[in-house]
């Protein structure tokens, strides 16, 4: 029984990390129809920033994280505004190749700056321990991850349905040509969403640093996982990304615990079945 419980908690945590990293990419794909394979690099940058700030600059985790997110978001905004927006009209394959190239360059740059070793984020004391919930004790870090994931999901859903920005976003996704004629600042929506997505990816990198170690190849190593979550969940759908991330996170964790010599077979088998059943994603927009 305790194995099942561990699988549930670890799987949920893993799923939340995947969700937080993937949600930005899903929105970008759904909004700008832009396949951004450098998304993993943002997760890496966020993690590296937090690692540097907590270890070398000796900042508190609670201060370092928002700053890291800010930096990552800014980087995303700058890249989008200067370089990536020119690629929106290009063919899928070209976007794929350009952003893979960008990832490679970012990996090489990261290595040049920080070296190839794994980066560790210094967590505050209590996060390294466990929390007693009465019936069970849970690692505090897992609780943080799960809580953060739920918070992000709530924030995204609320932004999309209750703010003006959300209205703009939805209009821009559904009817981009008419949206601009209605006075909606499309460029602002695109750039801001991209930056937000990048920042969220950074958060994912920080939260998932234990499960997915931060080293220069991070940017492409976990890219496939993020892509899978986005594809299965459906482009542009926040609930879809959440469902896909949690489902796939649980399956992957379960197979690691119960059938580790089969590798990621069940993950990809599940992915293939889900995509075959719902090619547009779990929650078609």
């Amino acid at each position: 029984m305790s194995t099942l419980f561990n699988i549930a908690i670890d799987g949920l945590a893993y799923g939340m990390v995947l969700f937080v990293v993937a949600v930005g990419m899903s929105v970008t794909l759904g909004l700008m129809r832009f396949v951004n394979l450098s998304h993993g690099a943002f997760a890496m940058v966020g993690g590296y920033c937090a690692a540097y700030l907590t270890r070398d600059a000796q900042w508190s985790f609670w201060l370092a994280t928002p700053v890291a997110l800010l930096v990552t978001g800014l980087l995303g905004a700058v890249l989008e505004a200067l370089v990536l927006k020119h690629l929106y009209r290009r063919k899928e394959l070209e976007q794929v190749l350009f952003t893979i190239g960008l990832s490679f360059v970012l990996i090489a740059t990261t290595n040049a700056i920080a070296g190839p070793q794994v980066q560790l984020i210094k967590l505050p004391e209590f996060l390294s321990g466990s929390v007693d919930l009465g019936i069970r004790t849970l690692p505090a870090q897992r609780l943080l991850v799960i809580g953060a994931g739920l918070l992000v999901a709530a924030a995204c859903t609320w932004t999309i349905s209750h703010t003006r920005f959300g209205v703009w976003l939805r209009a821009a996704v559904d009817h981009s040509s008419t949206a601009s004629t209605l006075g909606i600042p499309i460029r602002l929506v695109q750039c801001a969403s991209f930056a937000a997505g990048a920042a969220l990816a950074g958060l994912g990198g920080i939260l998932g640093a234990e499960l997915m170690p931060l080293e220069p190849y991070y940017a492409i190593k976990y890219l496939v996982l993020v892509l899978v979550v986005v594809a299965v969940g459906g482009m542009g759908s926040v609930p879809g990304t959440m469902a896909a991330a949690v489902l796939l996170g649980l399956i992957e964790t379960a197979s690691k615990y119960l059938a580790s010599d089969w590798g990621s077979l069940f993950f990809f088998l599940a992915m293939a079945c889900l995509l075959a059943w719902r090619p547009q994603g779990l929650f078609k927009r």
Partner: protein
Amino acid sequence: MNAMNDIGAVQTILPKAPKCVSAWRSAAMVLAIGAAACFSMPEQLGLLTRIFVTALLVLSLDLVVGVAGLATLGHAAMFGVGAYAAGNFALHVAPDPLVGLAIGMVAGGVLALVSGLFLLRYQGFTFLMLTVAVSQIMLSLAQKARDWTGGDDGLSGFMNSPLLGRFAFDLEGKVAAGYSLIVLVVLFYVARRLVDSPFGLAVRGVHENRARMAALGTPVFRRLLAVYTAAGLLAGAAGALSAQTNAVVGLDSLSFALSAEILVMLVLGGAGNLNGALLGAAIFTMLHHTASSINPYHWLFVVGFLLMAVVLISPAKALALLRRRLGGVQ
């Protein structure tokens, strides 16, 4: 008969009609260049063999990506399956390289046929992701089936008997180089004929506009499945060659990294006209060989930069020019 005479007369006044470059001429060119390279760089035969094998793999990818227009990140699966099949055949049945080559081809072709039946129902991003799923599933199966694949250690210990009973594989790699070059040339010829045939024309039409082709009466699914299977046969052949010339097959022959790498090679060389595949494979492999002694991260930087440059500097125009000159859609 009158029409033929009229055509002759009309053609003297009006511009020439489009014409394909002859297949055997292209193949002869490849043979000449390959042979020249082998004779002028006899100490680099190992590298050249690797180039020939990689070129065959990228050629097979071009059929899928460049000709049929199906972006795939799982093509390594057919290569790996062919490699393991040929390796196991040599190990457990008979070390005859040509039979092993055929076995590898069949393995790649069967995987392509079976997975294609499923994959080709989908398009675009979904199709791309599903190709990743298929190849990752194959990788997981290979990791599990240690008895057949050797797992992380790889499959080794198999040998090749003399080619055609006469040419023993020598330590300098002369026979290996010649063998892989000839296989490349023969299969390149086959691919050329395929692309320049009415079948190839229809596939290129599907690439240009899939929906519209149905309005011409084309059985789109069948055509795509056929070209995907043909590509699988060629990729399997490349895998068999790789197994035979390296005497080892590793899990990296099924990896996502390999699928991505060959896609990069294809794009750098120019997709769609088959020649670009060979060019890209040659350039990339040579660059990698020279850069491999340097820090691998610097290599990544160069490739990444090249990729971005190739996309930004609109190779479309350059490709069209190249295509016209080396015999693409003519």
